[in-house]
């Protein structure tokens, strides 16, 4: 009988609730602060252990990552904070409480719901006031990157935070960008001379560990400030890579100007086993004061590791196996990844200009190219030039930089 009662109680929850005061928590010592005109925002992100200490619940285990924000409105009119800018699918405070109601008694749940509600970040800040609180975002591995858009009288300000979490170092933080090129190699270009450089000077492809290796086409060129680039990749859902990541170790064997990518980003869809890789290298050129990055975007299939031996093996290289790979694999159709990136930036309001130039050289299904790490591919041979903007661009506001190239079209399929 006692056992039966115990079993029944296991389902109903008998705990009380005690949340901690967020203002005294240790992670606040890592808060970063930024100011624009008369607005100051501080941001801090508790890690998994700190989150459990704070809320009493292992939220990271449920894919939820709290972001703490403190916003000061020094202006003389109200300010509106857009929570959706931080995460388009954030969890509401009471939603997080309700998801975790099971372990608590009725009173315990009341207390918990009140704690989450009281410590949620409010959207409206009256003139001259200061507010702080949590936004419950989806957990993403790595440095916590997010935008905070605030509006006053229709004028927007975008703050972008990259809050490091203990134990994660993004690859690009290890690159000393000021030392990459000697001053005499740096060139200021305009759009016309950029096109010439891309079509006639820039090599078709990245390299690999050995001289003469084909590391795959350099099929994207991004133009924009560093901030615009990081913001646009954030908005598009791209994830950064740890400097010591073993998952994307292969990506670092790709070379441009004799070095590994300065930054590797990736993006995967929840219902698939492919992931998109984006490798970026800072180029020694600028355009209207903005940086230019050369890069490559392609699909990486999880089975691809099996193929890395193929490139070195003459027999396999001409095998039916490889030709089937090229006929069927997602990764072989490398232009599809290029199209995805274009649309991804376009719909996330980051793209201000776009152009198509030549420079890669076409290859086809019947005459594919093969990278040093075993990716057979075909392409119509174009590069996409993508100019990204710090401020949002409407769908119809994208300037066509270069266009009208009559493509060879479906002949790459033959």
């Amino acid at each position: 009988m006692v056992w039966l009662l115990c079993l029944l109680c296991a389902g109903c929850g008998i705990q009380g609730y005690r949340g901690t005061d967020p203002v005294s928590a240790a992670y606040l010592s890592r808060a970063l602060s930024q100011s624009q005109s008369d607005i100051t925002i501080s941001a801090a992100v508790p890690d998994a252990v700190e989150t459990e200490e704070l809320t009493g619940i292992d939220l990271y285990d449920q894919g939820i990552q709290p972001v703490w924000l403190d916003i000061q409105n020094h202006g003389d009119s109200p300010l509106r904070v857009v929570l959706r800018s931080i995460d388009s699918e954030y969890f509401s405070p009471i939603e997080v409480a309700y998801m975790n109601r099971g372990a608590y008694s009725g009173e315990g749940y009341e207390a918990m719901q009140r704690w989450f509600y009281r410590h949620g970040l409010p959207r409206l800040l009256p003139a001259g006031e200061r507010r702080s609180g949590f936004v419950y975002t989806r957990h993403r591995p790595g440095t916590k990157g997010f935008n905070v858009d605030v509006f006053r009288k229709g004028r927007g300000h975008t703050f972008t935070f990259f809050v490091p979490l203990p134990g994660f170092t993004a690859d690009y933080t290890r690159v000393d960008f000021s030392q990459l090129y000697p001053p005499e190699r740096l060139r200021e270009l305009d759009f016309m001379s950029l096109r010439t450089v891309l079509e006639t000077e820039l090599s078709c492809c990245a390299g690999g560990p050995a001289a003469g290796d084909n590391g795959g086409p350099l099929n994207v060129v991004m133009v924009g400030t560093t901030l615009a680039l990081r913001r646009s990749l954030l908005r598009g859902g791209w994830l950064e890579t740890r400097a010591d990541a073993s998952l994307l170790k292969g990506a670092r064997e790709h070379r441009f100007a004799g070095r590994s990518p300065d930054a590797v980003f990736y993006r995967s869809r929840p219902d698939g086993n492919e992931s998109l890789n984006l490798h970026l290298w800072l180029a020694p050129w600028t355009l209207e004061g903005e940086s230019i990055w050369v890069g490559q975007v392609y699909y990486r299939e999880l089975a691809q590791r099996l193929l890395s031996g193929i490139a070195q093996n003459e027999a396999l290289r001409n095998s039916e196996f490889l030709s089937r790979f090229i006929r069927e694999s997602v990764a072989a159709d490398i232009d599809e990844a290029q199209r995805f990136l274009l649309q991804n930036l376009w719909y996330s309001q980051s793209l201000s200009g776009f152009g198509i130039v030549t420079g890669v050289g076409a290859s086809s299904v019947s005459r594919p190219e093969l990278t040093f790490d075993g990716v057979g591919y075909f392409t119509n041979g174009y590069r996409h030039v993508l100019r990204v903007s710090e401020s949002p661009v409407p769908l119809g506001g994208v300037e066509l930089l270069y266009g009208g190239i009559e493509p060879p079209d479906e002949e790459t399929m033959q």
Partner: protein
Amino acid sequence: MSYTLRIVVQLLLLSHAMMAVGAPVPPPNDRLQKRTQGDITVNVAVPDATEVRELFGADLYAQNIQPVWVSLRNDGEVPVFLSPMGIDHAYYAPREALQRVLAAGQSLGTTLLENAAIRRIEIPPRSQRAGYVFTRVDEGTKSFNVDVFSDTAVSQMSFFVPVPGLQLDHHDFDRDALYSQEEIRELALPDLVAALESMPCCVRDGEGEDRGDPLNLVLIGQVQDLYYAFMRAGWDETETIYANSLIKTAVSALTGGRYRYSPVSALYVFDRAQDVALQRARSSIHERNHLRLWMTPLQFDGQPVWLGQISRDIGVRFTTRTITTHKIDPDVDETREFLLEDLAYTQGLRQFGYVGGVGAASYDEPRSNLTGDPYFTDGKRIVMWLSGTPTALNEVEFIDLSAWHTGLIGD
């Protein structure tokens, strides 16, 4: 248009008058729908599961793949771009579709799929392109947008293509069937505010007796702009309640699986059930937003005015009456503000402001809806003017309506 572009365009014009790009892909059936905007003509058709099996020799629907046939004719003198992502933001590249079919043990030729697919997004001047975009399956009415870009311009068109299958709520909206010409009132802003504040505070049950969720939304816009904006923001139409779909919802609730079309129950305003019901699924059924709209007899600047209700589901409870019901977030203002942000970020919003009419309820003294869930609110109704053309975030205007507030709370 840049100088180079103009030269290229002229060269193209010299070389061919009207050409088809690639091999022409014929439509799958004669259920064609056509729209024309300026120099752009778009035709679409959606094959049902049987037609897809006949076309491709494989069951794509079973792998959650629904091909949409699109034909675009560009009679203009500049190149345009057709974005598959506009049709479904999580569309499948042809080879992604192929791999899903192969992984399920079916056979399918790559070439068949790729030759049928739209594989290039640019459509040169005076040319035509037709083919398939592989989208996720929508049962019943397939509703999607087609976005066509050119240099600093965009044409957007919404399509609703019936596909044999489930029955959804969408129908071509006929205002004349709801209101006679005499009932329709065009109002200036001060009168509009007063009229909106005197509208019912809340939805009612079928008998018109008990009050339910607060009517905290007002939308102003043509029905096609409304559908375009919500589809762009990832909202789906809902299914009408039938026994079959209730079972699917119950299974989905038990497994946490994602069933995009779980039905909503009917709620009543103006003595009728909702005119439009939409939902936005997130990663599981436990987390979705529901929205219901009723067209009012009011009109502003020639645009219809809609009254509505939105709720964020934070869980599913089991009931005897409808098998399942959703537990809503009691912080209904949070849900309302999220909708504002969602429409602004997906470029569907032109301006917004607030009126009263709902009546405030505090956290400690909440009111409750028809299924007994509590809610609290500041008592405001948000008024959103939808945009027929994409509007960037920083162009969205806030309109202060407080000068015309009446202090009325609707019944």
